[in-house]
């Protein structure tokens, strides 16, 4: 199977309620700076929607957001444009993009260290029902790719998987690492 439109969501520490309002300014700043490989276009603010997509910076090739789907806040990378290469390349590309976005949040003084990766939980999903319908067949086909990728991401560390069970939702899996990783550690693992 060919994976495209890979999404990665890094769940945030949720020890205290997080106000998404400062993100609006941060995302506008990202557009001003255009310091990414991707073209960033606009900001969409859905803070008013319960368990919604949160605040999004809309890009041409991909969107970045702090997403609250399922009432779980996370830094989400939504790849829209096709990515050349193998499925491993595509998983790596999306995960690195999400991690780099998370690193920016963690270091942005305007966000007061509130947007921090929880170190364990990552959701990987495919935003295309034609390429990856949420079926057991997709799961079987995807599992070897996932195993190979997670071995690299967690440097051989243990993890557990929880696949999305609602067949109408996008095909996806939440991966929980047995130990806590920092964003930099995960980036380093993928770079090696």
């Amino acid at each position: 199977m060919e994976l495209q439109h890979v999404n990665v969501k890094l769940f945030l520490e949720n020890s205290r309620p997080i106000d998404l309002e400062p993100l609006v300014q941060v995302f506008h700043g990202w557009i001003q700076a255009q310091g990414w490989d991707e073209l960033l276009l606009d900001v969409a603010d859905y803070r008013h929607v319960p368990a919604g997509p949160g605040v999004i910076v809309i890009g041409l090739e991909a969107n970045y957001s702090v997403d609250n789907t399922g009432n779980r806040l996370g830094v989400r990378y939504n790849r829209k444009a096709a990515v050349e290469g193998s499925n491993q390349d595509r998983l790596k590309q999306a995960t690195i993009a999400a991690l780099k976005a998370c690193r920016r949040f963690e270091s942005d003084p305007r966000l007061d260290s509130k947007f921090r990766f929880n170190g364990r939980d990552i959701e990987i999903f495919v935003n295309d029902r034609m390429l990856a319908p949420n079926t057991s067949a997709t799961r079987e086909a995807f599992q070897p790719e996932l195993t190979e990728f997670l071995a690299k991401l967690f440097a051989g560390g243990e993890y557990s998987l929880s696949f999305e069970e609602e067949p109408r939702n996008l095909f996806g899996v939440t991966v929980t690492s047995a130990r806590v990783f920092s964003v930099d550690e995960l980036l380093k693992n993928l770079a090696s």
Partner: protein
Amino acid sequence: MKTSNPLWRDRLIGKMPEALARELDIFEAEVNLRKMGKLDERVFMETRLRRGAYGQRYDNGERHDGKKVQKMAYPRPELTKGPNTLWDAPGMQRIKIPGGGLNAAQLETLADLAEEYSDGIAHITTRQDVQLHYVHIEDTPTIMRRLAAVNITTREACGNSVRNVTTCPYAGVCQDEVFDVTPYTKALSRFLLGHPDTQNFGRKFKPALSGCSQHACALVNLHDLGLIATTRTENGVEKRGFAVYVGGGLGAVPYQAKLLDPFVPLEEILPLAQAISRVFARLGEKKNRNRARMKFLVQDLGIEKFRELVLEERKALEPDPRWTDYIKGAELDREEPLRPAGKLSERGSPEFQQWFKTNVRPQKQEGYVVATVTLPLGDITSRQLRALADIARRFTKETVRTTVEQNFVIRWVSESDLPELYEALRVAGLGAPGSGTIVDIVSCPGTDTCKLGISSSRGLAAELRKRLAEKSFQMDEAVKNLHIKISGCFNSCGQHHLADLGFYGVSRKMAGLAVPHFQVVLGGEWEHNAGSYGLPVAAVPSKNIPQVVTRLTERYVADRQNGESFKDFIKRIGKAEIKRLLEDLTRPPVDQRDRSFFSDWGDPREYTLDDMGVGECAGEVISSSDFDLAAAERQLFEAQVALENGEIEKAGRTAYQSMLSAAKALVKTEFESVPDDPDRIVSEFRKRFYDTQKFFDPYVGGKFAQYLFSAHEKAKQPYTEDSARFLIDEAQLFIDASHNYSNRAESLIAG
């Protein structure tokens, strides 16, 4: 942009009528031809518009990022999908939902499309459509195929065509309707879609049907074609039909529809709609887009002449079996309940009671209710749409509709199921109370995504909603039931004219800086199918609008007499008093170090940063044209007061004078000693600002200047109440446009 697009065509073969599949193949071919540069961009633009694929803000490839206008580095800047509209820039896909009716499979498809091609949100519009934003043009054929497979079309959702046929969402279950208009909505929608007589309009054409005249649900009075259910007794037999209205419309200057015929039998509505379409296609304005809506044709011809032409056209039509077949077919398609009727047996939690009070309405069928799903700003997520589909299947035979207040209603709910239904909605984040109350604010997309937006209507709506929801428990009942509607510009997509408290976006200059403002529009009537339109009272900086709402509502509670409506209260205390009440809110803050005042709600970018020199800000440089334009606004206010007092002639003359004053203010910037002679002012204005196109609005061109020329031409004619009212609206828009020109001109000088 989706790599799977080619696969969908094969997957969906046989899942839609062959003719429709062919149409979509043709559209896809046109997309590819345009991509290869083999189809003219203007032709392609109209093609995609007629398929509901619309432009979106910043699609010209430029965006003010808060510091400067930034060129966006699209990969194919030479490739366009219309004049000045870049191929790679995301756009909006509008999806027609006749009468707002949706079944569970359709809700699920919308959920999938919002997730895969948009930003995870489906937006319900003020005309019962659904919109997806940030959509790539190359994905639109697949989106359309996936919709077609569940019997939804986007055809003629935009462009110069018959738009979505809207209908009261309570049709068929309303306790005081004359009869259920749902079948006639379906028949009219089916008949006019793609009809050869509707393909040559100069502008869009919006129909609406209502089951009664007293409620607001279908807003018939603001439509090009409006049908209100009625009956007539003939030879002792009650016969059903429609009162037919034509020529209503909002837009910059709102028009109330005129009665064409008090009773049209059911079997005559389709041929009559066809005859009206033919008259509009034949005689409606084609060149000047700003005068091309049917309201202008009806106004120019007069309703008697228009009626005569329609009846002539009707006589000339060849009989068409669809006139009755479509009606009979639709009449057979009746909604039914899933579960037996019941009674509510428990009081439930305080949250349930609160929701029950505002969001549940009894049906005429005993034991059944309509439950409203209140959506914040008309937005719903993909997962919520799936939850709604589940709820529709579990409690009803999938009888869900969108509303013009940007919500959903679930019809045919057994009253005894309400606690369970509420719990299911609550879990899905869809159980918010407040339907139809002051917190249920209607807003167009405004500067968030619309190319025409001037101020952030959604940003303001979100802020007001948050503040009002916090206070709603202790709010006076009279205030709770008010309506707030917000448009990002004068084009009225947020239907601000109909609200108790309406706002539309304008910009003004303060202390040398452009500041987002909203015109406060008061005195509109939502009931009686949009019974009357409000008038602008004052332009107030966006950041002060919450205080406007607080002051007006507090004053209403304090001074309300004998249960009078807000509209009557506004009329009684008068515009002069309201202006006095809001006067200080129209001024900039004393301490201008707080720059948030110079940005809009939900958008931290400074409104026009090019103007933001510190020296200018501190120095309060006010140009003479600013003073002159302020004087023009004062004159216009006098005109409004005169109209309110019934001094029609004075109102018209003063409104005209205010336009002259604004025109003179601009002329003086180039010709200091322009004499105070109307002919000379208008001719100088024409020469310096119209012929040179300097005054032209980026999107509507010379429309506002034409208001001045028309007012000048008619200056010696007596004014009627209608003409004075229209002129006041036009004068306001001309003055707004003069402010905009003045801001643009100063930006250029500063930049």
